[in-house]
């Protein structure tokens, strides 16, 4: 096992853990490297909670590692997560709520939410996933009020 198994600049299992083996490719949301986030920089305010959030890039990197380890489903989850990393928390919670059974009154509400994910955040995979859910929910009669 080694890094870049496909010779395409992708990460492999040999690069893992990235924080240890490839620290130069690891950075927080505002580009700060791991060395720049210390108790001192937190105390002086130059590092904030934003610097402790995972970036879409880091999620795609972990997807590469997962795929190299033969874990396609996990890699796809990381790729969906990369799309959600920039989505605000309230939108995440609204979308989750809408996906719960009986919350959406019709397929249209879900299709609209999917469109929002696609247009506003470029979350193409996630949008398709929500649209697929809408189709399944219609088929299984989930657009019914539960409370």
């Amino acid at each position: 096992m080694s890094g870049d198994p496909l010779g395409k600049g992708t990460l492999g299992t040999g690069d893992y853990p990235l924080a240890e083996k490839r620290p130069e490719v690891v950075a927080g949301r505002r580009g700060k490297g791991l060395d720049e986030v210390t108790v001192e920089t937190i105390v002086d305010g130059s590092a904030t909670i934003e610097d402790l959030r995972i970036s879409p890039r880091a999620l795609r990197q972990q997807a590469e590692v997962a795929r190299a380890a033969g874990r396609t489903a996990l890699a796809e989850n990381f790729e969906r997560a990369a799309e959600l990393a920039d989505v605000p928390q309230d939108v995440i919670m609204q979308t989750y709520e809408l996906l719960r059974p009986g919350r959406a009154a019709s397929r249209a509400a879900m299709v609209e939410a999917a469109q929002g994910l696609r247009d506003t955040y470029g979350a193409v995979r996630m949008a398709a996933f929500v649209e697929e859910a809408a189709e399944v929910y219609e088929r299984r009669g989930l657009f019914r009020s539960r409370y």
Partner: protein
Amino acid sequence: MGANDLGGANRWRRFDDWDKRPLRLDNFAVEDPENGFSAIAGANDPGPSLSVENGRVTSMDGTTEDAFDMIDLFIARYHLDLTVAEEAMAIPSIDVARMLVDISVPREELVRLAHGMTPAKLAEVVAHLNAMEIAFAYSKMRARATPGNQAHVTNAKDDPLQLAADAATAVAFGFDEIETTMRVSRNAWSNALACCVGAAVGRSGVLFQCSSEEAEELQIGMAGFSSYAETVSVYGTEGSFIDGDDTPWSKAFLTAAYASRGIKMRCTSGAAAELLMGFHEAKSLLYLEARCLCMQRAMGAQGTQNGGIDGAPLAAAIPGGVRELMAENLLAVWLDLECASGNDARSSESEIRVGAKILPFLIAGSDLICSGFGSILKYDNSFNPSSFNGEEMEDYMVLQRDFEADGGLTPRGEDAVLDVRKRAVEAISAVMEELDLGAPDTAMKQSVVFASGSDDTDSYTPGQVSGISAAIKDREITVIDIIRALHARGFTEEAENLLFLVKLRVSGDYLQTSAVIRDGRVLSAINDPNRYGGPGSGYRLSAERRSEIAAIRGVLDKREVLRAEDAYKASEQRAVEYTTMGAATTGSDPDEVVIGISPAFGLQLFRTLAGHPLSRVLAELIAGIEAGGGHARVVRFGHTADTSFLGLSAARLSGSGVGIGLQAKGTAVIHQKDRLPHNNLELFSNAPITQLAHYRGLGENAARYAHGNDPEPVVVPTRGEALGARFHGRVALIYAIETSLTSDGAVPETIAVSFSEPASNRETGS
């Protein structure tokens, strides 16, 4: 007891005895596949089948595509690897079962095949394995090599001081993960903050989760308090899924959402959840769990918590239910999921059933052996009592030592535990003060440091905690504020430890399968893969780890035994004086009974295993011999320390031909000179329960045998105590002290015994 006590009951009384055992508190259910009470053979379990047309699943496990429910659809679309499916489904299930226990078939190959198998196929394969084969296959198939464990840290008052102290304690004992929940749900934020601070004491990298309502749990994670989640529940029937207020799509969305926040996540499923919820579809526990696990893998979750979680007690009520729990854990690791392998909710009141259930996982190892080991006392466990709890933690650590198996825990001494508890209470108090959340006083803090459980504390009440929790939430306090507060109050190490944990989410390394943190490093299925390939391979205890596990509390060695004996030396030297009168010769007094004492008797060893001073034992024997009309003579032997040979040697020197052998530990025998060594007249083999009155009776009987009488033997009553377990460690060490003083051909010596406190020594004990 006589026949009159029967009271007319027409019943073997043993059943009354059995009725009183804790086991009889357990519920047991009749196997009833039509009503969902079946471990592996449900009335409606389908046989394995799969049809694929043009890269599309058209039927699966007997259901055609048009009749697929949400779960079937999700599995067909996201679990099944159609490049493998045809090959995998074609291999007879019994052959796959054999591959699972074949050390020459690599794990990777079996994982590849599993990804092409339907739920019914997976269930059919593991159903071929017996319990031992399941455990063996589990040990071969689990993803990460190094085993770990997870603790519950909760208390009945949601007291933040106790949560911090108990979290730090769990960290000290070696848990890799800590999970909390609340008695009062709105206390989630306070519990999270308290555990997060406590878990940063002592070492860095213990992952923490706050089991809460789905949306709130994610928010707590976003604030940086928690680092993983595992309550993303999945169910095996559509009806229970909807009643659980989710769908495969909503849960898959949540799975991605956790990853998008850099938070480790595993799903939860497990036998009998569907049965408890009333939507079992007359399908077996195993088949429904196979569906759950295929779904979890399909969602892209890195792992699962399964093996019967809340449903474990119900599963255990069904014939074969415990084997089924093992089988579903095997399915999880075979599918390449991290497995927190249940052994969580206590499934029996019988300690034997609990101990038996844990063993396969302890010796096979698991990513997290318990998905919730109660590190706190049972009544403080806000989930429910676990299989193992604070009460039984030492039992578990001794099991590790017995089987030389790494169960993830490390014994700790009293001082070390007290140190971390004090530190944690000071740290959380400092944080609360800095953030203006409270000002715990000394009495509150002291009560928590020494408390075994919340009954012992005089600290916060659940109502007071609600105010603290609301303040944390409303003021949007985050882990950044905690790190600053710790730093401001001089808790530098804890601030560093906490920051280390939150920084893990920047790289996301710990999002990979089966990740834990050891010695500041992420260890997962990628950089610590389980490559078991038979004896000598896979995870083995290092010499260092072995000695950690062995170092339980209260172990004996020769020095410890001698030190304990030395404590009695001075009082014995005051009570009795032994004067050597020269080589012992054969007596001629027909009333004489020789008491043959062992080499270390009264010289290095001073009391029997029952705790009687040797001077008093000797005094009772002499008094008994005199009461029986005999004359006692004491002889010390140096050629043997064995009771039988001491007794026979004494008898041969005795004028009457009857002698008593007496070891320092209190074992005593009456012998007669013409008998074979191990064919004695009377024997007290259970020294720990032999009382002074028994020794007196033995002396009296010896004198009566000397006079040719046939007295009623003295019987030392036992109530079935496991005397071997209680004493044999010490016995072996004591005996080694005795035998170290023996030498071949040593001449026996007559001893003049002079009691300086004769009055008290002649009192008989009982």
